[in-house]
């Protein structure tokens, strides 16, 4: 059975190989071992309750203990620094006198998303992307958030990768960021992973950008997600998150946004008092989580809710006597 648990120092080699397997680089995680070790240490202090703003990292493990996926939550986007996005806004250029009325899209550099809770750093083995492990890993974060509600913001964001070409270059970056850095996207992206995004974002042009001055291909790519992120977007939409007016300042990818308490997964969560083995009653798959902080664990369990207990024919390592959160794997899209 798959398990999702906080990443610890001993997961370092597995994390490193995962990062190097990922065909899409993550701008929120580095690939170098030393830097990854640092990130893990930060995450551990977060799970231990020592750092409220630390980015938490969760690992997906197979029965044999292999870590085959990772994902993260940044409880407070930007942590101690501003979190940068571009807001797609509009200015109306109008003259009654000249009978002209034109809406001009403008990108404003914004810190507004600073402090929201951000889902980030998701990657998993390619072959698992179409399995229930995808749901488990993705949504285990919501289980963690539900179990530690006071540690997170009211709103959730998820930055989706924008359009990158086959060489890993972003056309948005080429027309915007690169003008101000002289660094190509891959180099800048590596620097982001290394130093954090803020130090780079601080170098972005401070004044708004008239998108009408950008090449047409770039305009079309604004807020467009990379085709590979289709499954994630579908999930976000099912949860009730919507594409916001904010885009990533590096690759122009969209940011999805929504209130945590209104997310379908969150609303479907039930509190029970444990998981008990009992044959014959399995009816559906559940995400089940127990424990807090460092001891958090989340699994997929087939079973049935009876009274105050999840009954499953499968023997699990989960306790039959501890506060437990359960969430149906299959979501009804409209709960009400």
């Amino acid at each position, binding site marked *: 059975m798959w398990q999702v648990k906080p990443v610890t120092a001993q997961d370092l080699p597995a994390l490193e190989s995962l990062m190097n397997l990922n065909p899409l680089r993550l701008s929120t995680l580095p690939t170098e071992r030393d830097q990854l070790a640092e990130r893990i240490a930060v995450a551990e202090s977060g799970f231990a309750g020592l750092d409220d703003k630390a980015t938490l990292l969760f690992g997906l493990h197979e029965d044999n203990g292999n870590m085959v996926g990772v994902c993260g939550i940044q409880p407070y986007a930007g942590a101690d620094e501003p979190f940068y996005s571009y807001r797609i806004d509009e200015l109306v250029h109008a003259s009654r006198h000249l009978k002209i009325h034109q809406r001009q899209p403008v990108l404003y550099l914004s810190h507004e998303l600073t402090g929201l809770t951000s889902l980030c750093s998701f990657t998993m083995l390619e072959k698992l992307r179409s399995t229930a492990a995808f749901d488990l890993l993705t949504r285990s974060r919501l289980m963690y958030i539900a179990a530690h509600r006071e540690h997170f913001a009211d709103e959730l964001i998820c930055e989706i990768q924008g359009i990158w070409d086959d060489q890993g270059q972003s056309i948005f970056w080429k027309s915007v960021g690169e*003008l101000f850095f002289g660094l190509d996207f891959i180099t800048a992206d590596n620097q982001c992973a290394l130093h954090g995004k803020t130090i780079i974002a601080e*170098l972005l*042009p401070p004044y708004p950008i008239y998108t009408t001055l950008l090449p047409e291909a770039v305009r079309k790519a604004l807020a467009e997600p990379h085709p590979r992120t289709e499954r994630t977007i579908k999930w976000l939409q099912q949860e009730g998150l919507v594409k916001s007016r904010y885009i990533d300042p590096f690759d122009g990818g969209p940011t999805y946004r929504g209130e945590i308490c209104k997310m379908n997964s969150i609303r479907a969560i039930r509190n029970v008092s444990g998981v008990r083995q009992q044959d014959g009653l399995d009816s559906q798959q559940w995400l089940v989580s127990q424990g807090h902080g460092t001891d958090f664990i989340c699994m997929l369990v087939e079973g049935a809710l009876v009274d105050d207990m999840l009954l499953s024919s499968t023997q699990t390592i989960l306790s039959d006597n501890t506060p437990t959160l359960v969430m149906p794997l299959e979501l009804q899209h409209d709960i009400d």
Partner: protein
Amino acid sequence: MTLIRPIAESDLDALITMARESGVGVTSLPDNPELMARKLKRAVASFQQKLPPEEAHYIFVMQETPDGPPVGLCGIEARIGRDEVWYNYRLGEVIQASETLGVYRRTPTLFLSNDMTGATELGSLYLRELSRRNRNGSVLSKSRYMFLASFPKLFSERVIAEMRGYSDANGISPFWEGLGKNFFNMKFSDADFLTGSGNKVFIAELMPKFPIYVPMLNKAAQDVIGAVHPLTQPALAMLESEGFRKNGFVDIFDAGPSVECELSRIDGVRRSERLNTRIVDRTETDSSVRPQWLICNERFSEFRLISLPHIYRDGPVLELTQEQAEMLRVSAGDPVRIMSLKPEEPQDG
């Protein structure tokens, strides 16, 4: 002997003709009779001191003979941006630097600005095709320094001129195509016409208000920022030879540069001298018609300026023939101002 004088009501037809001839790009002379009539009225009122000095717009006309028709004109706007907002782009820079990242990048940036408001502007220079000879262009252009030198208190110490920006043989301005056009569908010639028609402020209000990062413009637009129209090159050279320098501001439509000089530092103003008139009886023997000197009276409403190949000077006294004195409307003992034209320049017609 050319004569330059304040424009008069009776010059309306000539003014309209010249505005029509001047074509696209000479924004201050739109082919719009009604508008030109208003301009004329304002200029006449300015010379009659019926307007506050800061609202004055002086227009002068050139005649090639004492009784001939106007063949050219030039103007001085006492203060720009007084009755409508005056826009320019200022050529600035945004610098991105990070030691950690090893980044140091200077990005040229256009900032919309009203900073030239209140300056005195030299403008509206036009000389009819057939009269582009005998240094008439130089005489016409530089006559304005004589007026400035004679009445400096009426003007700002900051004197500017806006140079027509680059446009191709079809009148297409690459800067307009790359920037302005994106903000409203209009040909440059239409926008230019509206601008000259007193709609400049309406158009300016449609232009982008936030700074424009130059590298975001297409290459053709970038290349012509601060470039002058080929036909304006001689005018720029002439202004530069008098001490004017590009001041880092460009036109918001065609990115033509502005040039600027402090009034008291304009070479022509400094070269000019105030002398007293003596009337002499002399027959001009020099057959050269190419003028080397400008002479003007110091009468405001009846300003007159003539150009001469030679002057006869006796210390603080300038000797004029009766005919010259009559053209200048001075009598013996009256003050006059002289200024040498600079040595012949290649652009002199």
